[in-house]
């Protein structure tokens, strides 16, 4: 099994890489952070007997992705799984952020994800089942004031993935969308979760369990994975309430959390 993971040297990408290595899959890891990739490669090779290739790439730049693809083609690597982890968010309201930061969210979470997905789908291992995984978010279930761009970018991924799943179902490709609540991936994520108090902790999922189940569900051909019962209930509530109500509710809750966070 050959697996490509984007955003591999960040918190979730790293744990998914560990999970795959534990299962004996060969890995091709990419990230914008070259040093992080090298550290991870070293750590994984010391723990597991699997082949690990790494190459840094800025997925938001077409030339960088082209270079990555020529490297892959030069070595004749073909894939059985793509896990799209690379993504970004900047905290703060729309007008309190710089313009370029806002457009960067879309450039990476959406545009870059489409770019790499298109290229890797064309490099599937022939006549084999291919698993495609998108990392969306619980945020994709709602319009989220103060996280408006991020939530919308994750909604894009969710809808795109569900549609693509139908398009490719006769071509041996399954598509899974992961919609986690909070994940403790970075110090900032940790602070964010603490700032949200009870609800932050309650909607936080264990990284190691999410990683394991994500791969299980992808192999089983499931379409959506929302970790945690509470998160599944919350996403259901988001579906039955009018979307404008949901936005009002979330603004009320996030507004308080942000004040606490910025203190």
């Amino acid at each position, binding site marked *: 099994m050959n697996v490509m993971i984007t955003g591999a040297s960040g918190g979730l990408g790293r744990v998914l890489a560990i999970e795959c290595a534990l299962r004996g899959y060969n890995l091709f890891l990419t990230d914008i952070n070259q040093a992080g990739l090298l550290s991870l490669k070293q750590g994984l090779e010391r723990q597991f007997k699997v082949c690990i290739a790494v190459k840094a790439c800025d997925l938001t730049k077409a030339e960088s992705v082209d270079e990555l693809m020529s490297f892959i083609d030069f070595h004749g690597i073909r894939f059985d799984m793509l896990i799209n982890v690379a993504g970004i968010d900047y905290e703060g309201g729309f007008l309190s952020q710089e313009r370029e930061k806002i457009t960067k969210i879309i450039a990476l979470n959406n545009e870059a994800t489409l770019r790499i997905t298109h290229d890797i789908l064309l490099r599937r291992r022939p006549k084999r089942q291919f698993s495609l995984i998108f990392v969306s978010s619980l945020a994709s279930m709602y319009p989220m004031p103060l996280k408006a761009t991020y939530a919308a970018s994750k909604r894009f991924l969710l809808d795109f993935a569900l549609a693509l799943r139908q398009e490719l179902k006769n071509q041996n490709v399954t598509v899974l969308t992961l919609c986690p609540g909070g994940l403790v991936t970075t110090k900032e994520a940790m602070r964010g979760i603490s700032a949200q108090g009870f609800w932050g902790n309650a909607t936080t999922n264990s*990284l190691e369990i999410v990683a394991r189940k994500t791969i299980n569900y992808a192999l089983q051909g499931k379409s959506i994975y929302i970790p945690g019962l509470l998160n599944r209930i919350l996403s259901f509530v988001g579906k039955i309430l009018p979307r404008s109500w949901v936005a009002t509710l979330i603004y009320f809750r996030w507004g308080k959390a942000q004040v606490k966070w910025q203190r």
Partner: protein
Amino acid sequence: MKAIVITGASSGIGFEIARLLSRNHLVMGIGRNKTNCEKAEELILSENPDARIVYFVADLIQQHEVNRVADEIIAYLESNKNIQLHGLINNAGCVRSWYTTSDEGYEQQFALNHLAGFLLTYRLLPFIIKAKGRVIMTGSQSHKGIKMHWSDVMLRKRYNPLTAYKQSKLCNILFAKGLDDRLEDTGVKSYVVDPGLVKTDIGNKQTGGLVNLIWSIRKKHGVSPEVPASTYEFLLEKHPAPPGLYYCLFKEKAYSRQVTSENADKLFSLSQKLCGISYDRREKRL
């Protein structure tokens, strides 16, 4: 002049050891946060202008940072030939509420509480051997009542913060035991100090929810970090070297029955693999 390297030296127990030892040693402290290191240095010097203290900044959870700071310390020692590295105190430790990993993909409590000290000791060992120095780990009573999870040391199957902490503290004693077994003829001695329950912020840094809450309540019953600091001084200074392995308040204390040479060897070979080093090869070279 005798130098002592102390990790986690900008706060808690490590800071108190640094404050105490800087009166008659050169203390080389390592801390994660530059501002905290500067503040600690300022505070120590404001109390005692003759204190000899220098801080190095490194996030020891990451192995590349351990190696970088080791390079810096080695360069410092090599350019100051009159300084002997008399002691290394592997004190830095953390608690994590959730499964989190280092840049190398190692679980963070295991990476910092055990592997960082294992690697740093290896890097500084030639200097410690030359000075017939001592290596001291900050352990804990909580190492008791647990076995090593050999098939899943990083607790990937189901992470539990307390299990990870207890196991990492068992690793400290196993490491000290393994080090003693290997360095018997060199005059180097290793110890683990049980500081007791101490009022520090270990359970409030980068933790959340339950761990944070429980520690906030529990630490109120703890002693001030000055209390255990003198035990470290005792173990560094006492001649001849105290014979035991595990000490609390100047006294030898019983440790877990899990601390066997067999377990120590097993941990040694696993840690060597995870750090990409070999103590055995180093011994032969010396």
